[in-house]
């Protein structure tokens, strides 16, 4: 490991330890109520006392996130490829995409439950729905960024539309798709947590968190919050690793 790299690791650890110490100190010094903010030591002890339910809930939420993001990605690639190829279609779809992006999903979750039913379907639907715009924009922008000279080269030997899409446009869109994925992990996790609490599910971190909040159980609430954060962190690390091996050729990874 180079000296610069090991320095980076040292400073990341210093930052993490500093943050946790500061958090612990503030809660103790100001005697903050558990519902407002729970000290990290108490979150850890709540989790360690009975980890089973939290691990189960985290597993359920992780599944919601993975299903939602996967469905969203597939749909977005199809929509994005069509929009990148047909400019009028791109203009026509703007109002819908912007609307999905700016409308607070907190507001329409009841409609979602009424339309797709309560439980897992509503959660996965919301995760997929709210993450589509970022994926679509990344696909369209990335596909359009394909080197014009390379496009001409493909055309000079009459490469098919499918070959242009698969061998040129899609690889060109990969860097922006990874960026969108990082952004969507946070968004999707938020949507999953909220929807689990609102969609009448009986498990998932969001549902346990909502019930803990309604019983003023600060320890339960904050443990689900931290579990959600850890889930997000694991997802980010996984994406970063996949990105590093997939985009070795891209300047962002050099």
């Amino acid at each position, binding site marked *: 490991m180079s000296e610069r790299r090991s320095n980076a690791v040292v400073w990341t650890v210093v930052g993490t330890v500093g943050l946790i110490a500061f958090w612990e100190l503030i809660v103790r010094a100001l005697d903050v109520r558990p519902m407002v903010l729970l000290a990290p030591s108490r979150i850890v002890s709540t989790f360690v006392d009975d980890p089973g339910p939290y691990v189960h809930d985290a597993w359920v939420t992780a599944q919601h996130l993975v299903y939602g993001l996967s469905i969203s990605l597939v749909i977005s690639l199809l929509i994005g490829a069509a929009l990148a190829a047909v400019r009028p279609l791109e203009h026509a779809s703007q109002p819908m995409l912007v609307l999905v992006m700016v409308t607070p999903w907190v507001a329409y979750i009841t409609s979602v439950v009424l339309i797709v039913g309560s439980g897992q379907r509503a959660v996965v639907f919301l995760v997929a729905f709210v993450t589509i715009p970022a994926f679509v924009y990344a696909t369209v922008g990335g596909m359009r960024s394909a080197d014009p*000279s390379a496009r001409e080269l493909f055309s000079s030997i009459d490469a098919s539309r499918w070959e242009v899409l698969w061998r040129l446009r899609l690889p060109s869109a990969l860097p922006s798709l990874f960026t969108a994925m990082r952004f969507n992990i946070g968004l999707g996790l938020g949507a999953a947590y909220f929807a689990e609490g609102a969609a009448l599910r009986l498990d998932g971190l969001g549902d346990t968190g909502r019930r803990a909040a309604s019983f003023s159980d600060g320890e339960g609430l904050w443990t689900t919050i931290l579990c959600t954060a850890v889930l997000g962190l694991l997802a980010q690390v996984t994406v970063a690793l996949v990105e590093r091996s997939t985009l*070795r*050729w891209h300047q962002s990874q*050099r």
Partner: protein
Amino acid sequence: MTSVPGISVDRASKRFGDLEALAPVDLDVRAGEIVTLIGPSGCGKTTLLRMIAGLERPSGGSISIDGGTPDAARKAKRVGFIPQSPALLPWRTVEANARLLLDLNSGANPPSPPDPIELLERVGLGEFRSAYPHELSGGMQQRVGLVRAFALGARYLLMDEPFAALDEITRADMRHLLAELCEPTGAAVVFVTHSLAEAVFLSDRVAVMRPRPGSIVDVIDVDLPRPRRPELEDDPKFFALESSLRTTLMTGAGRE
């Protein structure tokens, strides 16, 4: 239409809206011949090349390749195109980039195309087969671009100022290499350039163009012996041809 081998440009012209980019031009490129289009910026040389490649349609006149349309030649992969930038795909290794044109529209590949690995070795990139484009210098990237076109085994090669972005020394190396690669294939080449030395060294004939509107002023025969070797560039005959070409070019541009 009779099936004559070669490229035939018959009063082909091009308009972009109100702009007349290319006035009607005639040009014949026989099988195995190397013809250079030279002229100042805006003289329509790239437009003419793109029309021959089937990437642009003429507004008037016609172009035929082996008696068929440029579109038919494109579909049959009879034309190897070399763009100005190497246009290598950054996610493909050097070897995979060299094979790119064979991988696409593969149904139209010739029965036994040249081996890209052998070609890479000939241009001195044998050791870089597994490297990625960003690990190569500009000259090396353009060499991969040449291999990619030659690997197609096409009867026609169309090159759009492929060495424009390179430094003078690399550029000289590249034209020597190109002459070496071309000779055994017998492919006809249309080569667009700004460089007098490139035009004289590579060509059998040079078409001198002028702008506003783009047109061919003169076609000059280059009667230097083949094979062409780097030493040729020190020959008085080479200088004489270069000088006469410069005069034609200046006269064409209205600067006598």
